[in-house]
């Protein structure tokens, strides 16, 4: 009954209007959530009244979720989520006592270890108590130094608001209901089986991760699907339902014949721009699109995928075979090759941007010097504009991407190497197989599962390319002349510069379907043939 009341109260709170009306998305979520919770509680109440065994499970889960949502809302109303800055300020003012608290707690930890080694010795016990005392004194000092009066007065001010009081009551009610239904005697009353108890315990342990996934990943994902059917301003200044118009706009193409080889937009339907010119069977054709940039981004990302994935995977496969050997110094090299994977992508891209610079970059410098040193190489007269040339801009991005990812792929392959039976290599050795034959006939097939995983993850990363392009094509992201525009870059620009969150969401879902289809196809292909070994 407490849960039913809490569900109704949360529905009323979510539906309030006026100055403190909730944003539409949160309001919608809260309303749906409240209805579901109320219905679930009604079902649970009916079950409890009739003594149905599963009623306890329904009640427990519903009350627990209601408690989590109400607690989060309460923290929001108390300003807890926006108090991080103030937390830093307060910590700064009382940093010294904070350090003493840490020292005191470390002291307790060390004393505990000593006591564990020699439980009968009196010294560690005294040290432990002294540590607790020090931490407690420093705690008092901390509270005085950081002056919590401001925070307390803010909390006191906000907690008197009717909405906050209502949320607090819902949270407390849901918590009490959860606590009550969780009790052993209630479980016995409903005849809950041991298997059900174990399932509930397992769900309770998993719940932080599950709830986090639902709220911060699945929820926004589904929300973006809803948004994609609207003309939805990023700035929140307008929205209207447009059905599948955003998808139609993204994918619309028009083909028209033309007299001239370089005909313009005039030969296409209104609203279409020239995507490319073609000459088929002596006839000029113009292919147009409503969103040229998106189609160009699809072309670019396809080329990028074809080049970047092999460049990230094949060197990793070969390198891992070398690093898996027991040659001296291999551990050091394993660490070195992994470094690019942990380096910040922005810093890496900036450095590569300097390396690619046409006049003072190191890559052109090395090419020019190599040409001067080697008699059979004709050095170019000038350095090549790697990033500003249409023909090499995307290729440059491939190099950076491969450099950043092949180290991580190497580590995955190294893990795969560990699971290849040594007997296979011994047998090959006895049979007189050479290095290439061993690699081709044993290593590569045995790493099939690892290769599959590496291909999938690298392909998804490649299809989501954004940050490298964003940095390397500054000041015109996606340049030169859209040669490096990617789908993620296109949707980012639509969302934040075009202020069109609805269309950007539609592009995101088109990209999702492409990635899903690509991955699904790879999975289907992988199902053929036997597999063994490696990461799966």
């Amino acid at each position: 009954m407490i849960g039913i009341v809490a569900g109704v109260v949360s529905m009323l709170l979510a539906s309030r209007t006026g100055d403190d009306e909730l944003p539409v998305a949160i309001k919608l979520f809260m309303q749906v959530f409240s209805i579901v919770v109320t219905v679930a509680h009604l079902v649970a109440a009916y079950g409890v009244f009739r003594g149905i065994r599963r009623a306890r499970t329904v009640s427990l889960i519903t009350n627990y979720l209601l408690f989590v949502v109400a607690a989060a809302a309460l923290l929001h109303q108390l300003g807890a989520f926006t108090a991080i800055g103030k937390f830093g300020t307060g910590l700064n003012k009382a940093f010294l006592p904070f350090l003493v608290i840490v020292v005191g707690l470390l002291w307790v930890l060390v004393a505990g270890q000593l006591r564990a080694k020699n439980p009968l010795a009196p010294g560690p016990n005294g040290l432990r108590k002294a540590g607790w005392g020090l931490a407690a004194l420093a705690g008092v000092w901390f509270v005085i130094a950081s002056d919590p009066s401001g925070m307390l007065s803010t909390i006191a001010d906000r907690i008197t608001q009717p909405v906050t009081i209502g949320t607090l009551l819902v949270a407390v009610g849901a918590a009490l209901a959860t606590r009550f239904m969780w009790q052993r005697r209630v479980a016995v009353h409903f005849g809950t089986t041991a298997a059900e108890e174990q399932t509930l315990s397992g769900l309770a342990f998993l719940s932080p991760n599950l709830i986090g996934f639902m709220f911060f990943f699945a929820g926004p994902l589904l929300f973006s699907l809803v948004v994609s059917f609207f003309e939805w301003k990023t700035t929140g200044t307008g929205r209207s339902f447009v059905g599948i118009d955003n998808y139609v706009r993204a994918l619309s193409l028009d083909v028209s014949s033309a007299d001239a080889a370089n005909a313009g937009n005039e030969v296409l339907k209104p609203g279409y721009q020239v995507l490319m010119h073609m000459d088929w069977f002596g006839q000029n054709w113009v292919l147009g699109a409503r969103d040229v940039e998106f189609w160009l981004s699809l072309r670019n990302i396809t080329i990028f995928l074809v080049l970047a994935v092999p460049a990230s995977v094949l060197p990793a496969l070969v390198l891992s075979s070398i690093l898996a050997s027991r040659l001296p110094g291999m551990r050091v090299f394993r660490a070195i090759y992994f470094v690019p994977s942990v380096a910040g992508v922005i810093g890496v891209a900036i450095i590569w941007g300097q390396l690619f610079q046409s006049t003072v970059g190191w890559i052109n410098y090395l090419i020019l010097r190599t040409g001067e040193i080697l008699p059979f190489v004709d050095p170019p007269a000038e350095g090549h504009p790697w990033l500003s040339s249409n023909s090499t801009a995307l290729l440059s991005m491939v190099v950076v991407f491969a450099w950043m990812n092949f180290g991580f792929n190497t580590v995955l392959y190294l893990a795969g190497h560990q699971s290849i039976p040594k007997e296979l290599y011994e047998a090959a050795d006895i049979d007189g197989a050479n290095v290439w034959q061993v690699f081709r006939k044993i290593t590569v097939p045995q790493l099939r599962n690892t290769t599959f995983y590496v291909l999938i993850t690298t392909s998804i990363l490649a299809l989501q390319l954004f940050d490298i392009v964003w940095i390397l094509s500054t000041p015109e992201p996606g340049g030169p002349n859209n040669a490096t525009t990617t789908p993620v870059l296109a949707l980012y620009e639509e969302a934040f510069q075009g202020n069109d969150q609805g269309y950007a969401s539609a592009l995101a879902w088109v990209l999702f379907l492409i990635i899903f289809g690509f991955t699904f196809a790879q999975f289907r292909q992988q199902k053929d043939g036997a597999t063994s070994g490696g990461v799966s």
Partner: protein
Amino acid sequence: MHTRRWAGALVALTLVAAACGDDEETSTATDAPAPETTAAGGTDTTAASGGETDGEGVTIRWRTRPDNDAEAAVYASIGDQIDEANGDAFSLSYEPGNNEGSPYQDQLVTEIGNGTAPDVFWIPGTDIARFQSEGLILDLGPLASAEGFDLSEFYPEPMYHLTYDPAAGAPGDVLWGLPRDVSTFALYLNNDLIAEAGAEDPRALAAAGEWNWETFAEVAGAVSALGGENKGFAMSSWWANYGLFMNAAGGGFFNEDRTACALDTPESIAGLEQIKAIYDGGLAIPFGEDGEAPWKAGTVGMFVNGRWATPGARADANFNWDVVELPTGPGGTQGNWLFWGAYVVNANTEHPEEAWELVKALTTAETQAQISELGANIPSRKSDAAIEAFLGFTPPENNQAFINGLADSPTAEGPLWTGSWPKYDEIMNGAVTAVINGERTIEDFQEKICSETAEAFNS
């Protein structure tokens, strides 16, 4: 065991509450009662915004985009001074935005969408129209006219756009903000390299009135003739760089009332031909490449950039350098831009009067003089004192080059009131890049560019 667990939880909560304690400034601001506030300009201000009310006091959050850490520190200091001079009326909270090159506006748009944007923020001049058309910024006109605020002390070019009434299609009684500062382009010179090339000193040519496209090409050619990594000229692919050649030829991006494309006019095409000739002649580092790094490395004779590049030049250029005004084009002017950005007020602020007071305080001659002393900005007020402060910041010795740029009928960096500037920029930039890189003919550009950019006016 249970007692200890509860005690631990209580201690942790106490520590968090203690650490979340307000700082002193905020605490003192709670003494003053909040003034009555009303929405200005008929804009809906019912939604909650960045303005914070601690107890009964008002805190106004404000943000600007500094060009470097030193500038961020000065802005913070200015905020403190205004806060102190302001007494108990309201307190300020300064949030330095990202440096140039970072998505400052994108972050701002997101925060506006979430209702967490500051009360007062700076945006570039090109963004005024899109922020206004979305109803994101407050019309300060009623507040300004109520107290007879004098707008004539600011440069007229930015004020044209800041008082532009889209409904009337002309400047009117509205006011979207006040300009923070202005800037123009100049050529950053590597005097050592130019002397080594045996070319004439561009400063001397400018003083003699002989600094034009022809002599510019001669100097660039002489430096490029040194060979190796050396090039005479560098500029980035940002629209303003190629735009100045179009302006100098008497053309431009838009027609006079900025309602249609003018990229296909003979004058604009003449500017584009000049740019292409520079690149085809091998006088410049490739289009699209960063020009600043090779100039700082000492391999570029002339590098075009705004005043904001001066701190970097002072820090990194290990050679004899200075600036000179842009060469005069066939249109009779340098074709320079007047870059500007403005402090605007969030349409959803709960405290428009306080926000307006802050905007005024941030744009006084005294405040602008403090910024000018850093050398990166020219005051947006026509104040002799502020200009003197700017000129006194050396190197470069020839600071006057920037002031001359201001005096030579610059084209104001402006928003597109009748279309989408980001879309126009995207289409134009791709087309110009294709021409300069030889992937498209100038004739094709002239024939089609305005039909291609028509999409931007339909957005």
